[in-house]
């Protein structure tokens, strides 16, 4: 069926596939870097100590004090409210409605990058956290005591966030791809989904407490917070401070479900990239097979995409688990469960690299829309011009294909190097003999090479 529809969502310009020569160069650089890394690897762990240094109390009070928390919370609630209102009452055209760009580009793609650079910047702007804290404060005033909460089942760990992450991506790239249209998810269902998620999140916060749910179950807090572990900045006991980069990540994955979160992150981006490229013909075949057996086009497409999305999740997880099992065979290895959790953080740079490689151009292009016509005319009615920028547009010539390709390859190679580095550092903690540690890393090297070459491959066949 040649007119099988796929979600092209918001953007009018999509990336060309990276050329074969650049793919080959990127993969070769990865191999050379890996070879070099193993040859000159250091013999003492360097990221286990955070070397935490708090900033001055005055700076902390300004940046993370309660006035800033209240202000950021209000901004977060307001913008989220505008997005929901625009989704419910604005135009059905995805590219002209504030809701989709704000939720799926500005927030979804912006927070991971800014979190990695500046720390957990989503936390103060989190609209559900702000609403939950305000409700808690109101309860204290009325009842004269803090609200009581259930004890969070620690075995559940971050699993709710992992499931939420897959559900969010499913909404965007599976549900949004259905309906025989050339555009993706419509603003209205996105707003309805946001309202449903808000009700669920606030209920969970009431049950388990605002901060506990943000640490474990709230999808976006966990997801963006994961990337914030890579950077220099953090907040501890109300004080802003800096630490050795990547050091916080070494402790992030000790909670159950963390492996699933980072694997879901890589799998989501992989599937989104493969949908129109590497998996296209397989998806079309499965779609046709289902449609010929009487399923409606929409059901066939959603079912097919769901199957492939779950297969991608399983595939990414399997590659990681094979690497972990391989490490277990090296003399002196700790238990499998410890290895599985202990190396999950090494995939965070890969997840960020995938995100940057796949969505860099989308972010650059669509943010021009965000800060021009979507800001001035959030409902897309063509009758509003709040800031005088409603007639603005996207300059698609701002990025050449060459520039996009180089950013994509650079992101993947950098993510690969950082992942290798973190894995080697962790191996030095688990194996006392550095030679055993290095030997264990042949397996993780294979995992990292597989992910990086797979990422490059996806880019080389995307939109071909």
């Amino acid at each position, binding site marked *: 069926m040649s007119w099988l529809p796929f979600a092209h969502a918001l953007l*009018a*310009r*999509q*990336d060309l596939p990276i*050329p074969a020569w650049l793919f080959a160069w990127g993969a070769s650089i990865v191999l050379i870097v890996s070879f070099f890394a193993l040859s000159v690897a250091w013999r003492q762990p360097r990221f286990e100590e955070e070397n935490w240094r708090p900033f001055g109390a005055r700076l902390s009070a300004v940046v993370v004090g309660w006035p800033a928390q209240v202000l950021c919370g209000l901004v977060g609630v307001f913008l989220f409210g505008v997005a929901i209102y625009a989704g419910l009452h604005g135009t059905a055209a995805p590219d002209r409605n504030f809701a989709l760009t704000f939720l799926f580009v500005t927030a979804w793609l912006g927070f991971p990058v800014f979190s990695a650079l500046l720390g957990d910047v989503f936390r103060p702007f989190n609209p559900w956290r702000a609403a939950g804290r305000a409700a808690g404060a109101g309860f204290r005033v009325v009842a004269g005591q803090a609200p009581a909460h259930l004890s969070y089942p620690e075995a559940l760990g971050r699993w709710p966030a992992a499931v939420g992450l897959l559900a969010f991506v499913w909404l965007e790239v599976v549900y949004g791809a259905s309906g025989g*249209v050339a555009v993706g998810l419509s603003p209205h269902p996105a707003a309805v989904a946001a309202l449903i998620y808000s009700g669920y999140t606030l209920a969970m916060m009431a049950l388990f407490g605002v901060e506990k749910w943000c640490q474990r179950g709230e999808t976006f807090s966990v997801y963006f917070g994961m990337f914030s572990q890579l950077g220099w900045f953090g907040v501890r006991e109300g004080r802003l401070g800096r630490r050795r980069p990547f050091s916080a990540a070494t402790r992030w994955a000790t909670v159950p479900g963390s492996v699933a979160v980072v694997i879901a992150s890589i799998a989501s981006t992989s599937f989104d990239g493969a949908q129109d490229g590497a998996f296209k013909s397989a998806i079309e075949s499965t779609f046709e097979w289902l449609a010929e057996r009487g399923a409606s086009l929409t059901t066939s497409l959603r079912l097919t995409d769901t199957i492939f999305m779950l297969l991608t999740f399983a595939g990414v997880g399997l590659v990681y688990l094979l690497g972990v099992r391989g490490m277990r065979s090296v003399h002196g290895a700790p238990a499998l469960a410890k290895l599985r959790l202990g190396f999950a953080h090494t995939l965070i740079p890969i997840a960020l690299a995938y995100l940057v490689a796949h969505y860099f151009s989308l972010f650059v292009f669509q943010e021009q829309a965000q800060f021009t016509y979507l800001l001035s005319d959030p409902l897309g009615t063509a009758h509003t011009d709040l800031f005088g920028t409603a007639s603005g547009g996207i300059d698609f010539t701002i990025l050449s294909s060459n520039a996009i390709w180089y950013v994509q390859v650079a992101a993947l190679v950098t993510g690969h190097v950082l992942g290798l580095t973190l894995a080697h550092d962790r191996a030095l903690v688990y194996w006392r003999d550095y030679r055993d540690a290095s030997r264990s890393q*042949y397996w993780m090297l294979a995992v990292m*090479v597989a992910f990086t*070459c797979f990422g490059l491959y996806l880019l080389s066949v995307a*939109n071909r």
Partner: protein
Amino acid sequence: MNTRNAIVGVALMAVAVVLLIVLSSGGSDESGKSDAGKVPTIVVDKAGHPVGGIRELVYRKGDRIHFRVEVPFEEEVHLHGYDVMKEVPKGGGTVTYDLPAEIEGVFEAELEGHKEQIVELKVEP
């Protein structure tokens, strides 16, 4: 296992995988194909689908994009990215696109009313 042998083994395996993928993909990025100088016509059926499926058109930056769309009903054809809209009058008709390929990337032309993609336009550097 000898360390050097293991590293060389991993490197060779990975090189083999890369070569396999590059060779299996034809070792090129289809850079030879071009629709410059042609004037293809995309025919839309009464149900609003492009006959023969979504037409892929490939140009080099600086070429002239030139194609026609024949639609049997009143519609608007939208070439995204270049943001050019063409109106098909009541009763149907043919619209012509003739413009320079200035923006690189992959773009779609669609029937606005039917939300149906009819062309995938590629402009290579």
